[in-house]
């Protein structure tokens, strides 16, 4: 068995991954690398192939093509799976914890599976459940259950943690505390592979992201640079001053809608300069002047719009 630990910096390396269900490509030629210690996100709508990718990396599903290395081993090889499972932590989309156990009981049970587990009390403190340690799982709130779930994911001191949609269904407060927990774990050096369909979550947590659409990667990079967002189009908007026609403006507007002027440009410094100089000379006020860069949400919807339209009618996949 060759496990090239240390030789490679990548914790996960995926190249040309393919998985087909009933002649449909669930994952189609996907490649990405996750470096040690980083939080990497798979972003995409339901059915884009995020969970399939994660399950292949966990060794739960077989792939139909491509190369995959996780912590230096191929998760598709049965002989490697036992070794791998002591070194990864897994948090599924659904809360999969026996509801009549107490928090402590369920953590003790899972701790017994690992050669060198974290102390139970340390995990309970880390996930913020010290006051609920002896409460039954079914008595916990949604956010507390999710934090327990993550506690189960880290009880074996994983080098790599898989989080499949960790905050789906949580209220905003619970999402924030879950994010804090993920940041803490990342700060300890755990590599995290996260899947999400929330743009704000990816922006808040991930160092890098791969956007999936219909099983294909349509964009990769830091969230701030997605779809050329760091250098892309900026919208300048203001209300057309009274007595001024659109044709009087020094720059031709992209659109004028109910007297709101919008100018889309890649050169916002120059355009702003022209407009404000003109306004100062003419002594007119630019009411509601506003400069907006495209949001991650705009980029995401543009990248995945086909899927978005289809998903409206389709069931959750």
């Amino acid at each position, binding site marked *: 068995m060759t496990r090239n630990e240390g030789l490679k910096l990548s914790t996960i390396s995926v190249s040309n991954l393919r998985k087909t269900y009933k002649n449909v490509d669930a994952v189609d030629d996907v490649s990405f690398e996750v470096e040690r210690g980083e939080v990497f996100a798979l972003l995409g709508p339901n059915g884009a192939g995020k*969970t399939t990718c994660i399950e292949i990396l*966990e060794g*739960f599903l077989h792939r139909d093509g491509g190369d995959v290395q996780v912590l230096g081993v191929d998760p598709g090889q049965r002989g490697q799976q*036992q070794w791998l*499972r*002591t070194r*990864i932590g*897994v948090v*599924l*989309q*659904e*809360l*999969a*914890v*026996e509801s*009549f*156990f107490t928090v402590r*009981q369920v953590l003790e*049970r*899972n701790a*017994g*599976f*690992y050669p060198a587990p974290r102390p139970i009390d340390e995990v309970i403190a880390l996930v913020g459940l010290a006051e609920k340690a002896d409460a039954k799982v079914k008595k916990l709130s949604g956010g507390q259950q999710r934090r327990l779930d993550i506690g*189960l994911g880290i009880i*074996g001191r994983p080098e790599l943690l898989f989080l499949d949609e960790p905050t789906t269904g949580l209220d905003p407060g619970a999402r924030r505390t879950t994010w804090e927990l993920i940041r803490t774990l990342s700060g300890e050096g755990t590599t995290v592979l996260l899947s999400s369909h929330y743009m704000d979550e990816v922006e808040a947590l991930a160092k890098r992201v791969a956007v999936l659409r219909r099983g294909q990667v349509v964009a990769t990079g830091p969230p701030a640079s997605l779809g050329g967002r760091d250098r892309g189009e900026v919208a300048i908007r203001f209300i057309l001053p009274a007595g001024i026609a659109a044709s009087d403006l020094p720059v031709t507007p992209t659109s004028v809608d109910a007297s709101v002027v919008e100018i889309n440009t890649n050169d916002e410094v120059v355009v702003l300069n022209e407009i404000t100089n003109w306004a100062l000379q003419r002594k007119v006020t630019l009411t509601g002047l506003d400069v907006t860069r495209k949001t991650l949400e705009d980029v995401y919807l543009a990248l995945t719009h086909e899927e978005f339209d289809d998903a409206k009618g389709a069931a959750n996949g």
Partner: protein
Amino acid sequence: MAEAATTTRRHLLPRDVRLVVHQVRYEQLAFWLNRVGAIFTVVFSVLFLVMLGASAGQSRVPALGNIKLIVYYVPGFVAYGIMSACFTTLAINLVVRRETGQLKRLRLSPLPARVLLVAIFVSTAIVSLVQVVLLLIIGRFGYSVHLPVSWAAFALVLLVGIVSFSAMGVAISTVIPNQETAGPVTSIIFFVLLFLAGLWFPLGKHSGLAKFSNYFPVLHFIKAIDAPFKFQPGVSPWAWHDILIIALWGAGSVLVALRKFKWSPRRS
């Protein structure tokens, strides 16, 4: 699962043994903490025996050599208790755990699958044996029903029954689509077969129901558990024919279970 129990024993390493003990502890804890399962299995079998013993138990059955009905009920409910724990309760347990993602999660933990399956089987056997002991004590001290004459034959039937009905429980769990239907489906199959097998009212030997029931393992299990109590003159405590049919059902179920067993929820 029955096969897992027998084939892995040879390969069990000390670490595996420790893990089995660890997991059995939590399987037991889960069973007794989840009171619904405990009530449907253990409390029902005990309650049925006590109620029937108090009502119809003292009437005599000419078809069975004029014995009191309670003498027939004690082995009958021993069979009921084992089938309830191994077939109904195990099947529901597996469907619920599969559909809620618990099985998938365990599959992705370092707990080896063979250890989990052996632990579930051992835990089911413990629940079965607890019931057997309770029922025998109630029969002996509550209704003066004698204990098995041949303990060896009794132990063999218990072993074959627990293994085979557990295999049937795993097999049926693979065809049940979701946790909502798990209870109704297994209960209907179980209670229809129990009724046809004459658990509540002994069947005439050549009745149509008896002929129909001959194809299913429930009647044979009741007969095989009866035999070691030897309350009918001229009946051997070793009911080989019945034991063989139960084992065949068990073997068939192992094949179904091995082909169809799924770790992840059906809906995904």
